[in-house]
């Protein structure tokens, strides 16, 4: 004899503290258990792809800043890589190193936000979140020193980076590198062994390996499911083949694995930055590229291992000053493909946790 309650439709979002922006989940509940969900997007749709068709190749860079505003630097880089592939531009050595440093700093930055927000979704009252944001502030200081802004950097350029690093940058970065491992250890002490956190995140929202690959899920979410796939190793763009680092992978693919993979990736990123800071050569930071770019007719798909997954740009050029077609492969959106399968059968509280563990930015989901 089973007791049944009537299904109950709950609208989570669009304005809800845990949807990380304006996202809406129409959830059908049985008591507290989710029976069905339907994700609703589009509350932040700005038509980036259409806007880009009317802008010069340089003018698009600020647009990419505003797609995933947590990881502007990686977005810049991914776009610039695609344009360089399209226009066949060479990049000076020093600029390559700067790009690696920036991309890895951005990865730490994003993972700090992701992990902090995830623990917040588990119900911790802002403590881990604020600790992690404290370190993110430091990184943003460094970004500000380099680019002049704290969030929308607009730093990468086709053929290099916009300006050289200031003189005081590398010492400050070294100081940060020295301090950061202690801070990561602090987060781990604070939350990793916490029984409540483990109970809330272990074996929750399991994403099997096959499903992850089939759904095109990439980045830490896929790696937590055991997919050992990292474009930095698999398709080393730029100069990533010169650095030593590991790809942390999870075993089960639950929410806890996604969190631990992110923490481990931060450590790997620190390793990469350390090597890059050691080896960075002097020289020009931007190659000789015309101010208004006219790439030849053709198409190119440039991608990189963004902090959230494979971030790619598919560009079609008709030889003009603006791309004919500008398509983004948004990791945030595609990582949500399996959301329905991951959420059904769990309680609302788990749903929030699982959703938080995927780590999305609505600016990129909707674009």
């Amino acid at each position: 004899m089973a007791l049944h309650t009537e299904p109950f439709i709950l609208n989570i979002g669009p304005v809800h503290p845990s949807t990380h922006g304006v996202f809406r989940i129409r959830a059908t509940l049985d008591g507290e258990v989710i029976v069905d969900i339907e994700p609703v997007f589009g509350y932040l749709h700005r038509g980036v792809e259409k806007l880009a068709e009317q802008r010069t190749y340089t003018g698009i860079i600020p647009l990419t800043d505003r797609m995933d505003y947590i990881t502007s630097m990686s977005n810049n880089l991914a776009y610039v890589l695609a344009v360089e592939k399209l226009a066949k531009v060479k990049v000076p050595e020093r600029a390559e190193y700067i790009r690696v440093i920036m991309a890895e700093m951005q990865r730490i930055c994003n993972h700090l936000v992701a992990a902090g927000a995830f623990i917040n979704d588990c119900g911790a009252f802002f403590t881990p979140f604020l600790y992690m944001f404290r370190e993110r502030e430091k990184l943003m200081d460094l970004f500000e020193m380099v680019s002049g802004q704290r969030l929308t950097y607009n730093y990468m350029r086709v053929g290099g980076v916009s300006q050289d690093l200031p003189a005081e940058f590398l010492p400050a970065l070294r100081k940060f590198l020295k301090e950061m491992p202690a801070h990561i250890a602090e987060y781990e002490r604070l939350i990793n062994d916490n029984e409540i956190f483990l109970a809330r995140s272990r074996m929750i929202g399991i994403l099997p390996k096959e499903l992850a690959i089939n759904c095109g899920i990439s980045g830490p979410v896929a790696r937590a499911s055991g997919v050992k796939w990292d474009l930095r190793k698999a398709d080393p763009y730029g100069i990533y083949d010169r650095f030593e680092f590991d790809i942390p992978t999870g075993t089960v693919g639950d929410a806890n694995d996604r969190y631990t993979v992110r923490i481990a990736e931060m450590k790997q990123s620190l390793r990469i930055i350390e090597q890059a800071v050691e080896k960075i050569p002097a020289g020009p930071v931007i190659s000789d590229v015309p101010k208004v770019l006219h790439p030849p007719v053709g198409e190119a798909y440039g991608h990189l291992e963004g902090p959230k997954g494979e971030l790619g740009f598919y560009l079609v050029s008709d030889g003009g000053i603006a791309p004919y077609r500008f398509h983004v492969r948004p990791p945030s959106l595609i990582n949500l493909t399996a959301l329905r399968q991951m959420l059904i059968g769990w309680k609302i509280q788990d749903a929030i946790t699982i959703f938080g563990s995927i780590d999305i930015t609505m600016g990129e989901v909707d674009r």
Partner: protein
Amino acid sequence: MTVALAGKDIGPQIEKALPGSVLESAPGYVMLKPEFLVQAATFLKNDPAMAFDYLNFVTAVDYYDYFEAVYQVTSMTHNHTLMFKTRCYNRVDPVIPSIINVWQGADFQEREVYDLLGVYFEGHPNMKRIFLWEGFEGHPLRKDYL
């Protein structure tokens, strides 16, 4: 390093498996006939030499005369990648078969293409607008949209 397989090499292989399915084997891509798209995709995914298990992205481009759907797939086992395309010449009611049953990752992306370009993916279980609201007129990424 991921090897970008040349369409020239892969095209004949697909043609061999599915006669009449390939329209063009360019250096950068393989152009498939829309009616053979799902079969070709299944072949690319299941053939052990190809084993394209991962779909990078799906999109479409509006070339005024036709819509071109672009698919990029990667094999995680062989670490190679391939781009294949298909075309649809109907501008009023463009229809392309959906590959969601081959790669589930196409789910939201096909919906996005439908929303912004108006290309209907036949066989998709939930083919409706994703970003814009129901009842929005037109498809903004088309070149003739204001």
